[in-house]
């Protein structure tokens, strides 16, 4: 995951502290060299809106990465979501807007298809019965998620462990259990606290988990993803290059 704030790639810590990393262009270049499976570019600026989204999309268009793109941040309605896809993204991430408007996910899914929609669901271990608004931290009962995605939704949830974001803690799998119980048919991608193959393997063994998303660590270690994929025993697309001993 590449998090943007004011146009700059940042490292995120607990969804509150942000540290400066570099430019979107350089980070994407590196992730492509690493042959990652998908790149999530998310503008986490407090003021992310249509204008900032347009800047992000324009920069992505100029880069034209070969890797599939998930784009989010500043998507307010179904029109914005369609615009993201028509601008070249493969999938669109719905966050704050979907939190406020429970009809948004079904509406966007109807327009673009479930496969193109990802709903971000930040959760905290300190209040497991709620999901959080990504920017303000406002909480809503977790049961409202069912209404937000509808009964037969086939999109993907990006379950984000706020407390593990950028820290030393590993992902709290009890959060996943709650989502699995609530939405047993949903595919779930996990984010927060994945720095080692042990926890990624643990995640990928769960039947509903479709992916693991990695953020800060991709900017902190050389060839982090290729090395990690080599260590993962679950079936993942390996880095195509030399044979690593």
């Amino acid at each position, binding site marked *: 995951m590449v998090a943007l704030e004011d146009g700059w790639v940042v490292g995120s810590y607990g969804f509150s502290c942000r540290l400066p990393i570099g430019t979107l262009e350089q980070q994407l270049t590196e992730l492509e060299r690493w042959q990652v499976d998908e790149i999530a570019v998310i503008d986490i600026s407090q003021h992310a809106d249509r204008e900032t989204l347009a800047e992000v999309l324009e920069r992505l268009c100029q880069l034209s990465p070969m890797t599939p793109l998930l784009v989010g941040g500043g998507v307010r309605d179904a029109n914005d979501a369609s615009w993201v896809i028509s601008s070249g993204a493969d999938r669109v991430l719905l966050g704050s807007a979907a939190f406020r408007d429970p009809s948004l996910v079904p509406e966007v899914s109807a327009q673009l298809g479930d496969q193109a929609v990802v709903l971000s669901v930040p959760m905290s271990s300190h209040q497991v019965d709620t999901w959080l608004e990504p920017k303000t931290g406002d909480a809503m009962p977790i049961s409202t998620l069912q209404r937000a995605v509808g009964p037969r939704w086939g999109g993907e949830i990006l379950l984000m462990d706020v407390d593990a974001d950028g820290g030393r803690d590993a992902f709290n799998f009890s959060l996943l259990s709650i989502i699995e119980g609530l939405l047993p048919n949903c595919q779930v991608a996990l984010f927060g606290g994945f720095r080692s193959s042990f926890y990624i393997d643990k995640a990928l063994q769960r039947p509903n988990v479709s992916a693991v998303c990695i953020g800060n660590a991709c900017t*902190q*270690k050389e060839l982090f993803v290729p090395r990690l994929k080599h260590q993962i025993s679950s079936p993942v697309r390996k880095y195509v290059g030399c044979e690593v001993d």
Partner: protein
Amino acid sequence: MFCRRCLYGSDHPLGITFDSSGLCSGCRIHEEKDRIDWADREALLRNLLKEYRLRQGGSAYDCVVPVSGAGDSYYVMHLVKNVLGLRPLAVHYNAHFNSRAGIQNLANLREVFNVDAVQMNVNPESVRRVTRATLTLFGSVYWHVIAGQTAYPVQVAADMGIPLIVWGAHQGLEQVGMYSHLDEVEMSRRYRREHDLMGVEAEDLLGSLDVVRERDILAFQYPDEDLLLKRHIRGIYLGNYFRWDPYSQHRRMEAEFGFRARRNRRSFDRYDHADSAIYMDLHDWLKLVKRGFSKVTDQASREIRHGRITRDYASQLVRRYELEGLTEVPTLAKWLGASERALELVAIQHKNSRYWPGQYGDLGDFRGWSSLRPGANNNSNLGPHPQVAPREGFTLIGRGYPRLARYT
């Protein structure tokens, strides 16, 4: 926007963030230095190093340590050899713009720490071609030094099968708080390209201005992914495991190991980049021209964070030094085969108009960070320039003349 504690502004070229109280990310991360249990961190490092000591069938060396004739090299070597007990191979890229102190420091380092060392001397013609290109394209005389210093140690590590490279502090962490110390950030191609090399890889210079040829850039190329993966190369930063305080460290190295400082006209700090005759001269001036602040702002901000000077005094230091004149332009112009006026025009070509409003081939009056900060004035109460730094010139390839062991 400027930090309310240090002297950094929101358009720092490395990137910077501010919290709701107006403190920059660099100051926030610096606070970790006083919260972290450094004994725990050292223990963590010692545990990490276990797999690199005396590897079966491995190299005769536990690690590569990049060195120059500057102060950090001494402290890193001291930690690696004397504190951690590793067997390092010292690796040196010859920067060509060597000061007398730098040559002496490097020779002395090899003796006082008793280490094996290898050195890359790129031929002067290639260095000149690369420098002409980088100066013209993006106003840098120092690109080749940074590129060589960050590529050659990795090349040596990969070629000799020494998987661990030990660096000093991470510049992005120390200056703008790019990472937490607890992230244990490591060397990466992306950081090197983006921040060390200003987004320009050696390959990007090929064909530029028809000056740079393939054989000119070999020493500046970072090894490819396959080789790094195959040889399990990683580069760690000691600043994540030891409380990093450059000024104190340099003074200690001066006292204990014979490190030599070097006066310069553009800063109060005699230690940073003492190995180079150009860094605190034309290179620093070009930074001021392009970025609106110079090295003395970095050093003064660092000293504020360490609690040794106040913000007001730091501001005065910056105003005292940042517009000081240069001494080495004639030498560099002669070496490049250019006139001094040509160098001046290149600087003007790359000036940031926000800080230098002059027009028609003129820089104009400086309107940089030091004059944009709230409450800034252009006066300094520090009196006359305390450092005298006559023109020294530089030595392309120095043999060294150590003081400690001189045989006649």
